[in-house]
């Protein structure tokens, strides 16, 4: 005797499986292909309207400019894939920059100072993770709170002023180059490769997708969901703090006013790259393209001498267009949510 529920009604025509190979391949790659194609169009457009766009030095320029947001976006991608997100990066970046400047000026050498700053970032992430998992407060409220605290701390520590480095060595990440590419761009590349490998090849990465895709099923499958979530927030905040180090060595100064756009830009980049705020999908390649899209548009508009205010409008519009287009395709192909 069978119970007739809508479920069985749907399940019945299971014989016609979706077209083999293509379906899953497309589904996984489509968003990246889509945003990749979009990126190519942007490149073509700007190289047509500006002579200075398609040059080696401008390419380096773009890379340099996206590094800070890119590093933050790597961490953000982990958080979003696991079903959360982190607004507090907008506070952790300036906190990291100010701390780095203070430590270096206090005589700590560059490497230990950077390590200490990253450790402080990890603590911010630990607090985020503990509040989200143990108190069950949602990530929006939690990270909004810690965002405000971190920014406040950055202002307090810097007493509201920009702190220039007394030791010129502090700019090491920015000064030293390898084939014209500065060290921090190389660091960004290494971190991206590591992030890609972790998500794709490790048990931890697989657990992120599972937890983001279905938290309850993952818990029932015996995963330590809370622990993984805490680690994700720690990693996200550590990367944000490191981004603070990078921005400070770029500017040769620490200031509480840098990096405040980090949260929105990094979330925008991750979503552009095919992730969903409900979790379970997304990846590093898409995120990197998302970062490049935002950075290239900003750069191209500068070259076209478009005022900076319009850049923000353009960035927002592109985010809505890209995500809206993806959603529309989903609706047309009859997907839910």
């Amino acid at each position, binding site marked *: 005797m069978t119970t007739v529920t809508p479920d069985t009604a749907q399940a019945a025509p299971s014989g016609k499986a979706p077209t083999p190979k293509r379906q899953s391949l497309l589904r996984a790659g489509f968003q990246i292909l889509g945003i990749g194609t979009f990126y190519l169009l942007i490149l073509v457009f700007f190289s047509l309207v500006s002579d200075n766009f398609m040059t080696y030095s401008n390419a380096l320029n773009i890379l340099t400019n996206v590094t800070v947001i890119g590093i933050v976006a790597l961490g953000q991608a982990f958080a979003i894939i696991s079903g959360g997100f982190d607004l507090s990066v907008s506070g952790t970046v300036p906190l990291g920059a100010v701390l780095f400047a203070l430590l270096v000026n206090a005589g700590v050498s560059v490497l230990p100072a950077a390590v200490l700053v990253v450790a402080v970032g990890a603590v911010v992430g630990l607090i985020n993770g503990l509040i989200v998992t143990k108190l069950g407060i949602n990530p929006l409220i939690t990270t909004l709170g810690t965002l405000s605290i971190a920014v406040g701390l950055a202002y307090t520590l810097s007493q509201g002023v920009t702190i220039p480095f007394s030791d010129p060595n502090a700019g090491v990440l920015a000064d030293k180059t390898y084939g014209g590419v500065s060290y921090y761009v190389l660091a960004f590349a290494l971190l991206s490769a590591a992030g890609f490998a972790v998500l794709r090849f490790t048990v931890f990465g697989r657990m992120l997708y599972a937890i983001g895709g279905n938290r309850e099923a993952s818990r029932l499958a*015996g995963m330590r969901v809370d622990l993984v979530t805490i680690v994700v927030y720690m990693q996200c905040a550590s990367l944000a703090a490191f981004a603070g180090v990078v921005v400070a060595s770029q500017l040769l100064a620490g200031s509480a006013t840098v990096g405040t756009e980090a949260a929105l830009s990094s979330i925008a980049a991750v979503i552009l790259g095919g992730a969903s705020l409900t979790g379970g999908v997304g990846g590093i390649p898409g995120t990197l393209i998302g970062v490049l899209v935002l950075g290239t548009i900003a750069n191209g508009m500068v070259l076209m001498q478009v005022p900076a205010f319009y850049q923000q409008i353009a960035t927002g519009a592109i985010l809505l267009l890209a995500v809206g287009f993806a959603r529309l395709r989903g609706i047309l192909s009859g997907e839910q949510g």
Partner: protein
Amino acid sequence: MAHLLEIAGISKSYGSNRVLTNVHFCLGAGESVAIIGENGAGKSTFAKILTGVIRPDEGSIRLNGEAVSFHSPRDALHHGIAFIPQELAYVPHLTVAENILLGRWPSWRGITSTGVVLRRAREECRRFGIQLDVSRLMATLKLADRQIVEIVKALTRRASVIVLDEPTASLSEQESRALFEILEHLTDEGVGVIYISHRMDEVYRFSDRVAVFRNGELVASVSPAETTSEQLIAYMLGHEKEEFVQTPRRAGAIECPAVELRGWTRPGLPPLTNVSLAVGRGEILGLYGLRGSGAELVAEGLAGLRPDIQGDLILEGRAGQVFASPLAARRANVAYVPPERKREGLVLLLPIQENLMLLVLRQLSRWGVINRRHERARAAELARKFGVRYSRLSQTVGQLSGGNQQKVLLASRMAAQPRLLVLQEPTRGVDVGARVEIHRFLADIAAQGCAVLLVTSDLEEAVVVSHRLLIIRDGGIVGELAGPTKTQARAIALAAGGAA
């Protein structure tokens, strides 16, 4: 007697699947009718047609002699037929009074007053002889009281027929009695009451008439005073004398219990009182109970979801406590197949392969790095063993049919080679073919020496698949059936609390 409600020749099909066939039914004013039948007999479909949730393919409904057709539950309510479903729909953050008058708050030019709402709600309650503190927030009420609020809500809309779907399933003995007192009061006032039930004691205590559904047909409409519970069960099952099904099992394996529960007890609703059972290696032990019997608590306790249960758990002779977490259950090598595969079991966005390997990632990896070739090979082997039909292992599980999803879920739990497999409703919402296959897999799994605990509310499944069957009612084991005594009739008689 003039009929309040008259239903003639109602039929309903989903595709080629006929769920109701030519049902004729009458209800008089002030009459109470209990509807009984097995899962899938058509009771719920019937109730949903009566209340406008779904529309029949054929047949007519007459209310007070007038032909009506309902487009929606709202429409039905407008005509005076109210449905109290199991999943109540209410606004938790409003007061009882605001919920009772939901959307119809007394107002003057769009301005409403809390005082007037409270007063009106109190008047309504008094009119129907119901005691409720209407100023409380809905969320702070017990389930039983929320149900009563729903009834009052229906009555204030001048409902003349109230349809309830298993209203007592989650209520305590006392709360059920209180509910029936209210319903009796309403029938005295001339309201017609139709309620779906499983429990024989209720049927005998309250109803004027019992309507029995089987395979989509109304097979009997009798007065409980003139019918024995054996007769009612015979109507439900359709065969006066049932063939005994011998479920073969591996010889000699039973005597060493893989898992033993002793004295599992939990206050609250549903309760558990001193539940003890043992599952042997190579044995399929069935646990059958109606909704609200506490059967699911036993399964959830073994899955690590109910650390509040008091009692002992003995694994291969080693005594311990009830698992504190799902992780603890997994470490003890107990696998759990949850009842809601989409919500609790599978990650629909992930590929088949990754769902299959969800529990055994550590075995596939070294230094945390997954060996993907190894993973693929093991997933392919597992999928073949459990007859999963797919086009590619990289397909997402969300694209599979319900039956195939369920096979993936079962296979993923078996990947870890558990010593005990606990399943809850393993064939809910799957097609007939997959159901047969899953039952065969369970027999194979047991034959290979795994202990299997099958928790189900599907009577046929419970009787046919299990080697030994325990019946649970109101949180306590009320009987064990094995060998020739293991029949559907005995199982349901024990579970429903009729004279067995």
